[in-house]
């Protein structure tokens, strides 16, 4: 093997740095799933009747479904009875302020570089921190409330704004949508809720930080964001988990509703769940349903994702373009290293007239990673003048990884325009040698080439996140170059 290949490999093999666990007293229920468990979760959260009814309907529907198998990834069958469906760090009492959060939990977030202390935080980002099944802290809620913005945990939203929850919950991703969405609807325990009223431009980035701590738990959270006419919000999501030998399931649902005319939601994810070890042992199964609906005329939903973690990533952040002139975007960087597998992409469903969508997907495969782009562009009969542009690029590092592209295009009228571009390239030893010959080390050369490859996506991320994403990519690739 050449030195370039060896360096690529070294580069990829760097250890996961968020793999610690926190010792906090955890309130968890026994493993297993049944109607009683669903009732227990609902009771623990003191939910109104409509919630319990909805959960039960979802659970009963889930029982009739079978787990889908069509993704291009291999994993042993999941035993849904072995998982714990509710685990929460035990609060000493009802949380009134951050001072009452278990200091161990605060420390955890400090260690992750996410300070929940408002004074210490970068101004301009409000955080909802979710550990295992529940939200432990939400910052800046009061400040945002002054502008009429609701930003709180899902649990709080159910208590304080049940009418909004009832109206929009499941309106984009119904519990019947798919196997994992049904499971999530039945047992989801927390998540974030965000409502931006008419004409308000949210003054700071809102973010949710997810952390799985307890062993054997699944994390099933739900995020719901609604933007009224002329409202704008930029939302960030980050996630990590301890290193464990067994696989843990993360089956989240995210629903975005761009309700009013010219409303805009920008949703960015930097996903860094534990990817498993070099041999593919452990790691998170990240099976997530993310979808947005552009209901308002000229509304816009934009998904940006940087996926570097998880043993298996399986998700398609999608946009339903219902309002005329509405706009959907999907920018994605997915990196698979070692034994990681990713089957990700998007769906753009054009219903309204002159709707537009842009898809830019960058897949990077290293080690023995398998990376698939799967995307659907569907243009309905009435979506006259609709336009889509898709670009799917794959970059291969080394010779043991794989890149796959599965584009699906359905066009039902004659006035629409769909463009698809795809490319596959390899970081060649020639490119690395060329950089070396100009004095640039192999590691820097790979970083440079990979970042150059991802540039179009990174520039869509909020500033601090873009820097973070570049670093993360560097760390995730360490040891991958040869």
């Amino acid at each position, binding site marked *: 093997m050449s030195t370039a290949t060896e360096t690529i490999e070294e580069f990829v093999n760097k250890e996961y740095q968020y793999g610690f666990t926190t010792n906090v007293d955890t309130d968890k229920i026994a493993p297993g799933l049944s109607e009683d468990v669903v009732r227990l979760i609902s009771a623990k959260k003191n939910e109104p009747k409509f919630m319990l009814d909805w959960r039960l309907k979802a659970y009963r529907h889930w029982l009739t479904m079978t787990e889908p198998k069509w993704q291009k990834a291999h994993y042993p069958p999941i035993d849904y009875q072995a998982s714990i469906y509710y685990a929460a760090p035990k609060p000493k009492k009802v949380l009134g302020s951050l001072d009452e959060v278990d200091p161990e939990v605060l420390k955890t977030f400090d260690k992750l570089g996410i300070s929940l202390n408002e004074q210490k935080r970068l101004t301009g980002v409000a955080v909802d921190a979710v550990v295992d099944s529940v939200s432990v802290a939400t910052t800046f809620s009061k400040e945002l409330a002054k502008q009429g913005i609701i930003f709180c945990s899902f649990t709080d939203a159910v208590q304080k704004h049940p009418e909004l929850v009832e109206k929009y919950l499941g309106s984009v991703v119904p519990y019947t949508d798919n196997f994992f969405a049904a499971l999530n609807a039945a047992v989801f325990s927390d998540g974030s809720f965000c409502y931006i009223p008419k004409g308000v431009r949210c003054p700071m980035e809102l973010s949710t930080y997810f952390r799985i701590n307890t062993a054997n738990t699944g994390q099933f959270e739900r995020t719901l964001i609604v933007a009224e006419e002329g409202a704008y919000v930029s939302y960030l999501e980050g996630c990590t988990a301890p290193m464990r030998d067994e696989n843990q399931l993360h089956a989240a649902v995210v629903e975005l509703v761009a309700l009013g005319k010219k409303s805009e939601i920008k949703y960015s994810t930097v996903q860094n769940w534990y990817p498993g070890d070099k041999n593919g042992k452990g790691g998170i199964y990240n099976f997530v349903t993310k979808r947005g609906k552009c209901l308002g005329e000229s509304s816009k939903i934009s998904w940006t994702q940087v996926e570097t973690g998880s043993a298996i990533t399986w998700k398609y952040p999608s946009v339903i373009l219902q309002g005329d002139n509405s706009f959907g975007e999907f920018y994605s960087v997915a990196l698979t290293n070692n034994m990681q597998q990713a089957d990700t992409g998007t769906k753009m469903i054009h219903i309204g007239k002159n709707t537009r969508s842009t898809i830019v997907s960058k897949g990077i495969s290293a080690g023995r990673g398998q990376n698939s782009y799967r995307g659907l562009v569907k243009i309905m009969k009435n979506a006259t003048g609709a336009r889509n542009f898709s670009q799917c690029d794959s970059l291969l590092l080394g010779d043991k990884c794989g890149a796959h592209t599965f584009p699906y295009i359905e066009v039902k009228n004659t006035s629409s325009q769909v463009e698809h571009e795809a490319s596959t390239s390899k970081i060649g030893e020639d490119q690395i040698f060329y950089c070396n010959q100009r*004095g640039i080390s192999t590691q820097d050369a790979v970083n*440079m080439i990979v970042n150059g490859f991802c540039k179009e996506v990174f520039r869509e991320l909020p500033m601090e996140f873009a820097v973070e994403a570049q670093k993360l990519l560097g760390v995730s690739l360490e040891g991958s170059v040869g």
Partner: protein
Amino acid sequence: MLQITNLHAGVDDKKILKGINLTINPGEVHAVMGPNGSGKSTLAAILAGRDGYDVTAGQVLYNGKDLLDMDPEVRAREGVFLAFQYPVEIPGVNSTYFLKAALNEVRKHKGEPELDAMEFLAVVKQKMKLLELNEDLLKRPVNEGFSGGEKKRNEIFQMAVLEPKLAILDETDSGLDIDALKIVAAGVNKLKRPDNAQLVITHYQRLLDYIIPDFVHVLYNGRIVRTGTKELALELEEKGYDWIIQHETVGA
């Protein structure tokens, strides 16, 4: 500056260089000529540190240090520059960014402060004139979509910015029309200084009409079979490589 002694090298079991001896002093321009397959590009690749070649005997001293012992990036930082015969494209990596990174690596190595973007641009503007390059090229990704001539000119432009001590030009004339050749050669000549040296590898004599060498070496079958002044190149042009080869065979 460069001292190659009895260098033997090859790929796998195939012997390509069979005892090269060559000394280059500061201020000198050396041309290595030879027919296809004589080992010219192998020599350039080994000096620059490309992977995949086995050196089986001999040594190469560069300013008294063992060149073959250095990683390719260290050789570059020490002032060895290779103008590639086939410069690769690096999509997505901006040319300016790339060259700034390269120059700063060299400066760091010399213990000089790194240049910031403004200082770097000042250097670049001045050097661009030398090669009559269009500034737009610097805004594009490295070599991406460049014509053959632009790629070669870009190599010499990088050389101008990095100011190497030993520049190896590997068939820089191939694929160039006469106008581009003149520009490239003029650029190379302007970069000549008493404290640096150039090793020009070429198949044809025509480049040497514009870059006047102090010494011409004829490489055949992995060995330098003849060394002379620029007149040797002209003689070769006239009589062809066969003339040397016959001599060589008879002599052996």
